């Protein structure tokens, strides 16, 4: 097992990609602390992890609130005595309207607070413990292809995910001397509660499939492998990177009609 008895915090693990990573880590031997605002979903993931014979706790956490984050870290330390890995996955898209002309200041602030400041806060508090214990650590931030290219989701969402790519580099340099690796994953279109409204429209699903060279929509499990790599010692010399997991979408602008991939 690649993460035997490691302690991992996964935020936003009640559903989607976070859930898949939490369960995937447990299958490789990790104990998991789940920080989420959705307690019901988080509890069911914790149950699933305990069925695998690993320990799991749930802490109700809004990652945009420093007091919540501090509590998540304190309870995790009280329960498991250390933190080896933190996956900053919690994120939101925000309320429409979602154009630069119409977006409200509140929506802008809210999405940036959860998606970007949340990554900073969780990392700040987790790193304190990692440094105190002097055993290094792994920070994995979930960005997105929307941090690299504009695909019309919402300006604040794109900006938050682009910010994560740079924050990952900043933290990677700063934390290197503590032997803490900081990397990001940039998922493409992944089947999850967040993308369900889009993928429920048959035309959208078909269009998306055709625009993705591997010709399918990703599953949350597709993100688990890269996350495991970044959480394990296999990636000990990797830091500051963003790994895109997108079926080839990002670097495959359709130069021939999108329905043609040989």
């Amino acid at each position, binding site marked *: 097992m690649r993460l035997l008895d490691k302690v991992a915090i996964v935020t936003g693990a009640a559903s989607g990609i976070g859930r898949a990573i939490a369960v995937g880590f447990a299958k490789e031997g990790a104990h998991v602390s789940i920080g989420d605002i959705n307690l019901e979903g988080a509890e069911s993931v914790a149950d699933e992890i305990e069925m695998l014979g690993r320990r799991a706790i749930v802490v109700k956490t809004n990652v945009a609130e420093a007091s919540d984050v501090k509590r998540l870290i304190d309870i995790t330390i009280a329960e498991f005595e250390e933190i080896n890995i933190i996956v900053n996955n919690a994120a939101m898209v925000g309320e429409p309207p979602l154009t630069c002309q119409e977006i409200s200041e509140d929506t802008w602030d809210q999405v940036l607070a959860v998606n970007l400041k949340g990554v900073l806060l969780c990392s700040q508090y987790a790193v304190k413990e990692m440094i105190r214990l002097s055993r290094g650590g792994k920070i994995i931030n979930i960005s997105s292809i929307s941090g690299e290219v504009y695909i019309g989701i919402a300006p604040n969402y794109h900006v938050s995910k682009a910010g994560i790519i740079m924050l990952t580099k900043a933290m990677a340099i700063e934390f290197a001397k503590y032997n803490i690796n900081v990397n990001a994953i940039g998922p493409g279109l992944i089947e999850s509660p967040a993308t369900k409204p889009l993928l429920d429209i048959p035309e959208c699903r078909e269009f998306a499939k055709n625009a993705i060279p591997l010709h399918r929509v990703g599953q949350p499990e597709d993100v688990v492998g890269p996350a495991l790599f970044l959480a394990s010692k296999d990636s000990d010399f990797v830091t500051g990177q963003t790994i895109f997991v997108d079926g080839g979408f990002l670097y495959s602008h359709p130069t*021939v009609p999108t329905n043609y991939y040989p």
Partner: protein
Amino acid sequence: MKLMNKAALITGAGAGIGRAISMLFAKEGAKIGVIDSIPEAGLQTVQLIENINGIAKFIQADVSNTRDVEKAVNSIAAEYGSLDILVNNAGVCFVGPIAELTEEQWDVTIDVNLKGTFLCSKYAAPHLKKNGVGVIINMSSGLGLYGGACWSAYCASKGGIIALTKALAVEFAPDNIRVNCILPGAVATDMLLRNTTMQAKIAGLSGPEEINELMKKIIPLRRIATPEDMAFGALYLASDESSYVTGIELSIDGGYLAT
């Protein structure tokens, strides 16, 4: 005029983007060394420049041939007394699935597009150094950054040009030779027409017009570029307005790379 009395050597100047750059640079006061492998094409560009009272001289050269390049560079520098600007624009493209791409097509693509850029830069550099300020502009492509099905050799050559641009930018910086590249998107040229005709055939579409319509839908500015769009970018990189700019990729693509 932004390029008064500058001597500029432009490869592939007999058509398309190379011709547009030659014309614009001539209008801005530069003396042009028109390099092309096809004499009729190159001489026609010279005629067009002379029609607007510009100065131009044609030299036939295959940019992938060392002796051709050395001769072309030295004779243009001798003709104008100096060489200030090099535009590595000559390029070829074969569109097709990799299974059908021949080794010879691969070699020609890499030789002309990539080795040609290397050779011209190598022989031009000693001249570019002389006045304490010099400019090299390389033509890469959006396809140097992202993959296009059926464009493998072209993609490889253009990606190589981006890396070569950065390498030369660093190496030549102490000599104040700035090296940058342009990443054109779809530009209305004879080469584009040949490529889209082939693409349409491969994709089973009616013809290049159908590909053009599809491209317009995915380009944010909703149009195919003109060669002049590229020439204005080259003018910026050739002029003193960009005197602190080196090693960059300038995308001129209607916003395509932002999507």
